[in-house]
């Protein structure tokens, strides 16, 4: 069943177009993450879905019902805010029951629902406290409790982890994911953090300039980014992108970085199906840092491809060593095993995984292979 369906949705403020014809279909039980840099329109989109903002045109359907003119309280949604938005004068229990109080749910039913949610989130000892007496993580939990107790068709999360410190954020991230798996809720989650998107989502909608750039599962978004923006936004450090030249050699496509230079790098692409119109033209080559490793690494596949490249910078992180090198004169980040520390300025051997190279059209910036 389609839980949320957004059709040709636009939002204009005077002469500023914040959302440009958004189309999204979200299935029931999905964990959809809207991710994008700040100002991409993701929060506006969420507010329109919640009914807190109005669309300039287009429709929003929740559970098969057009809700454009339905007030937020009747949309069967619950929302978790970045600032938690807990009512400061109420206790945790009152915060959780406030919605039911507004809907005149009988007291006994309220108590049962609170007990249930408090147990699920392990906030039973906090029920009598005020929000000001809670830590950030506890507030976050209460905010989720307030949403969960409603048992809505759709959960909306607006950057709920942004105010937490790094350690707590990782913990809560796992907890939200576990919660989703346990109760099978439909969630739309807004964040600017691509790691949150990758780790939690069943499908990611990458947004930029008020448009959905790509809407797909995390693996697809990571492996086949629809365009250069997605390629550079997802992943940390992002995908290396560099100009290259596509040639045909013995029938198979070959991509050349720094063509004509003494240190040009020629990479044969196996199993790639590139439109003939691109042969002989400039393209943008994208290769993820983890696809460039120390020379001794064997990426599964037939002949390993090893190139010698000058090392410009070495950043040991503990779990791995990041190396900035030059491929045919173009800068690229490599992710190598932590115990190897190449010498600065000297050349070293690097193995390349050419099966996971992406090619983009330099004009449209779209993925071509």
């Amino acid at each position: 069943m389609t839980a949320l369906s957004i059709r040709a949705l636009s939002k204009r403020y005077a002469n500023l177009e914040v959302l440009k014809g958004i189309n999204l279909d979200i299935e029931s039980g999905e964990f959809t993450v809207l991710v994008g840099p700040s100002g991409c329109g993701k929060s506006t989109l969420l507010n329109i879905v919640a009914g807190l903002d109005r669309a300039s045109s287009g429709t929003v359907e929740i559970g098969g019902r057009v809700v454009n003119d339905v007030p937020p309280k009747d949309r069967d949604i619950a929302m978790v805010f970045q600032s938690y938005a807990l009512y400061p004068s109420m206790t945790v229990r009152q915060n959780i029951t406030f919605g039911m109080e507004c809907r005149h749910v009988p007291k006994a039913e309220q108590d049962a629902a609170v007990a249930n949610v408090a147990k699920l989130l392990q906030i039973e000892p906090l029920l009598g406290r005020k929000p000001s007496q809670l830590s950030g993580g506890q507030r976050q939990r209460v905010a989720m409790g307030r949403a969960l107790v409603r048992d809505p068709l759709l959960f909306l999360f607006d950057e709920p982890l942004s105010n937490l410190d790094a350690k707590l954020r990782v913990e809560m991230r796992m907890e939200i994911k576990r919660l989703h798996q346990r109760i099978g809720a439909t969630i739309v989650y807004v964040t600017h953090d691509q790691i949150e998107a990758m780790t939690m989502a069943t499908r990611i909608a990458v947004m930029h300039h008020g448009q959905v750039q790509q809407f797909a599962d995390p693996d697809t978004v990571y492996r086949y980014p629809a365009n250069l923006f997605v390629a550079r936004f997802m992943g940390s450090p992002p995908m290396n992108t560099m100009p290259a030249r596509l040639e045909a050699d013995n029938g198979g496509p070959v991509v050349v970085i720094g063509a004509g230079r003494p240190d040009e790098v020629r990479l044969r692409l196996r199993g790639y199906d590139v439109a003939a119109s691109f042969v002989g033209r400039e393209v943008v080559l994208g290769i993820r840092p983890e696809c460039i490793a120390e020379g001794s690494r064997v990426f599964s596949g037939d002949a390993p491809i090893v190139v010698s490249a000058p090392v410009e910078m070495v950043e040991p992180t503990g779990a791995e060593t990041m190396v900035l090198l030059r491929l045919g004169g173009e800068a690229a980040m490599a992710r190598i095993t932590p115990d190897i520390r190449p010498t600065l300025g000297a050349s070293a051997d690097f193995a390349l995984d050419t099966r996971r190279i992406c090619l983009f059209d330099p004009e449209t910036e779209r993925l071509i292979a």
Partner: protein
Amino acid sequence: MTNAVSTATRPGRPAISGALRRLPEYLTIWVPLLLSAAHLVSFSLWTIWISFTPSTLVPVSGWVGLRNYTAVLATRNWKIAFDNLLLFGSAFVLLSVVTGLVLAILLDQRIRGENVLRSIFLYPLAVSFVVTGTVWSWLLNPGVGIQKLVHDLGWTSFKFDWLIDRDMAIWTIVIAAIWQSSGFAMALFLAGLRSVDADLVKAAQIDGAGPFRMYRRVILPTLWPITVTVVVIQLQFAISTFDLVRALTNGGPGIATQLPALVVYDLMFQRSLLGRGAAAAVLMLLILLAVLLPYAAWRYIQQRRATHA
């Protein structure tokens, strides 16, 4: 520019040039602050001293103990002034807070012309109390004001003569004081309403709270600190009210609208009883402290709690 050059060419004396550069700061902040503090403290102490002396027309030394105080407290004038202060103070504070809050909530509905209305409501604050008192004394005067207007419109049995009614005259002061200062309460409350976290309102909207429940349960509880501030400011205004009453009723009819500040004025400058006037003034100071000290304590506790949290 020349200053910077001269300091740069004399690197040996940075302390003096630093002090020189901060001279305007000292002159504009510390000198007036010290002067006013010295005046406040020295004249308060002087008044307290006078209140224990047998001074009449001119200050004289001598010690009469609490005789001035017992004399003032025993007069009917002071008793009425004190009762009036209780009634006027509580009615004025309560009503101006309610009026200010209602105006602020109405203005908070993102209505058209908000700026104009806000200025109109706030404007009375810019008018001197003497002007307010005089204008309201005309408006409330049965012979020329509202009553006359309604009579002229044809409703001849209409009666609105509180100004000359011994029991109701104090309410005319309440009305004028509210007109003067509820705009101020409104401005503070409006600022408070505008600083309420927008997400809080959104959350309550999704929870399904109607406007009434939204204000009562979610928004107004966040306004407590502002309410306390408004109440304290209005209370200290109420306690020291002088010019408004002087212009509006001059304490009358008879002494029906007497207030402590008028008693002080009366004793000191009309009956030439400096000692008793000073005693009445010190009594006013004590009433003021009874309001301000709990407020200071409350602020202190709030700050302690905030830093501990």
